[in-house]
């Protein structure tokens, strides 16, 4: 008899917990995969497609599904290191098949040569090129990610990728210190 009671009690408990879990699964359902968000936040958002995926988010999804983490040249070693820390996998050197790490660049349209074909506008993944058909186009420099995707479609080759200029406000200190030394001098 006691055996039956135990069975019934356990059965009822299992039912209750099952219902709670079932309710929680519906009530607290998480849209999307949070790991994808975290990976996406570490990628440089250049949207250049050098990894072979059409943008940073698709690559983040692929990484979440087991893709290699060393296919992002704009992110370089830093991104690989951050990703390996996040995912607990070993950091590898950058896969040279997808390009090499270079200095940050920005696209510049030689405006007098532009024929206004709008092909670069369609190629730009972040809408950083301004212009209209048969009118000159120009790059909104501070929105440009330097992804290089506008260069190839241009029929008159009027787009240059130039390194981001160093200004006093983004310059990296590289200065020898200026120490004071105790000196013997007649003035003191």
């Amino acid at each position, binding site marked *: 008899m006691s055996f039956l009671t135990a069975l019934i009690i356990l059965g009822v408990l299992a039912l209750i917990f099952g219902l709670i879990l079932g309710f929680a699964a519906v009530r607290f359902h998480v849209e999307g995969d949070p790991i994808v968000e975290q990976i*996406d936040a570490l*990628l*440089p*958002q*250049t*949207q250049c497609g050098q990894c072979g995926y059409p*943008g*940073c*988010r698709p690559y983040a999804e692929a990484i979440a599904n087991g893709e290699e983490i060393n296919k992002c040249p704009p992110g370089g070693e830093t991104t690989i290191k951050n990703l390996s820390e996040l995912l607990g996998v070993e950091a590898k050197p950058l896969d040279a098949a997808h390009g090499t790490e270079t200095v940050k660049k920005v696209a510049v349209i030689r405006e007098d040569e532009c024929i206004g074909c709008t092909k670069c506008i369609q190629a730009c*993944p*972040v*809408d*950083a090129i301004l212009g209209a058909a048969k009118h000159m186009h120009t790059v909104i420099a*501070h*929105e440009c*990610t330097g992804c290089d995707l506008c260069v190839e479609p241009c029929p008159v080759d009027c787009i240059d990728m130039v390194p981001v200029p*160093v*200004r*006093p406000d*983004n*310059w*990296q*200190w*590289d*200065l*020898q*210190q*200026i*120490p*004071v*030394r*105790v*000196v013997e*001098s007649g*003035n*003191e």
Partner: protein
Amino acid sequence: MTIAIKEIDSGQLWNFPGGIHPPERKQLSNQGSITPLPLAQTFTIPIKQHSGAAGDIIVAVGDRVLGGQPLTHAGLNNGLPVHAPTSGTITAIAAGRIAHPSGLADTVITLTADGEDTLVTMPPLLDYREHGRSELLERIKQAGIAGLGGAGFPTAQKLALQRPIEYIIINGVECEPYITADDCLMREHAQTIIDGIEILLHLAGCDKALLAIEANKPEAIAQFEQLLPQHPQIALRVVPVKYPSGGEKQLIQLLTGQQVPSRGLPLDLGLVVQNVGTAYAVARAVLAGEPLIQRVVTVTGEQVSQPGNYWVRLGTSVADLLAHCGFQPTPTQRVIMGGPMMGFTLPDLAVPVVKITNCILVPSHAELPPAGPEMNCIRCGACADVCPAQLLPQQLQWLAKAKDYDGLEQHHLFDCIECGACAYVCPSEIPLVHYYRKAKAEVRQLAREKVKSEIARERFEARQERLEREKQERLERHRLAAEARKRAQAEAVAKGADDPQDAIQAAIARAKARKAAQAAAAAKQSDDESNV
């Protein structure tokens, strides 16, 4: 956190941790009075001389300008105007040398003086207490006044914050070796400085000021001791000699016993700190209508024959300044803008004197030998003993070398005031401040890139969404067009027009009939052949 007003009013002084006592070497330059420097032929005026955005240029090449005339219009983001240092003609507006350790170029306005030195001023506001607060702040802003102590923060901006202030602290400490610009200014213009402090008190809506002077300036102290009894709002505090007592946070700790919160402002404690030079400039701007076109600069070091303090028009090149002071360069001469602890070596002598230039140091090889080779850290801990911000310089150095930015954040890298005390005592000659400055720049760069990539992600997602939306709209349009076509057809049929469907059916029937006829003809022919 509140400050102990009773103790402060009783004149109590506190102490701050760490600090060093480097040789002061102030006698080199503080023996004479402040000499006005003869006008140079050309001036190069960088449009950004303060911390904040540059103004918009309102002059063009070829314009005749008078001394004191604004050359830029203060825009947004803590903008401040710059003024013509003397009368003359604008001869160029282009990229040129600025006072920055990088040696990079920025926009400068070149002015060729006409030698007449015609100056314009704004109308004096002698009865400033009758004028509105905003009018006075606007005057200080239009005069282009930025903190002259070194950081160059717009003074009007600092005073514009409407928060209750207990004390205004006037910083006349000038603790860095060699520099005597504030010392001489206090000796000669104590009354004007007091007038400036009164204006600052009026603007801040507070009634107590603490004027801090380091004990090694007896003449300046004597001047104020004589004048201050008539100004009960201002209390003199003579602080002991120690570097860096003149650092904003260190001075606050000395005078109030409280620490400014990490990443906070003195305002969080109800305090505002202003330099004596700024108080002087405020008094001149309000009471005489003079914009900030000159400042006191200490020229010192053993390689100038006439060290001393000079009234220098902003925009005068360091070369012109040194030429007047008997500059005898050695073959490997370094010229330092600022003091020996926090200054930087100039890339060349075309760099102009700007609002925050307090000293030009021209040391001999013996008094400031070039940095020796960096040796390994022996973990002596001397740096941690002298750090006035109570940081762990040794630890920060390891973290900076390893580029461990999270670790640097945890060790409060951004509380480092870059005073250089740690590097001064380091027996291994490790350029510690150099590592911190570099790490700070890298952390700031990473933060900027983070913001930029976040914007890029938003723009990418917005574009994807737009493309998807446009595609859906196109499909929807096609569907609606097809439906409309069908409906129009059905209506036409209902009205009695030929149903295109009938025509199709008729055509199919005709085709079928023709095929059937052909089949029948072929069958008949084969029958005939078999019959033959």
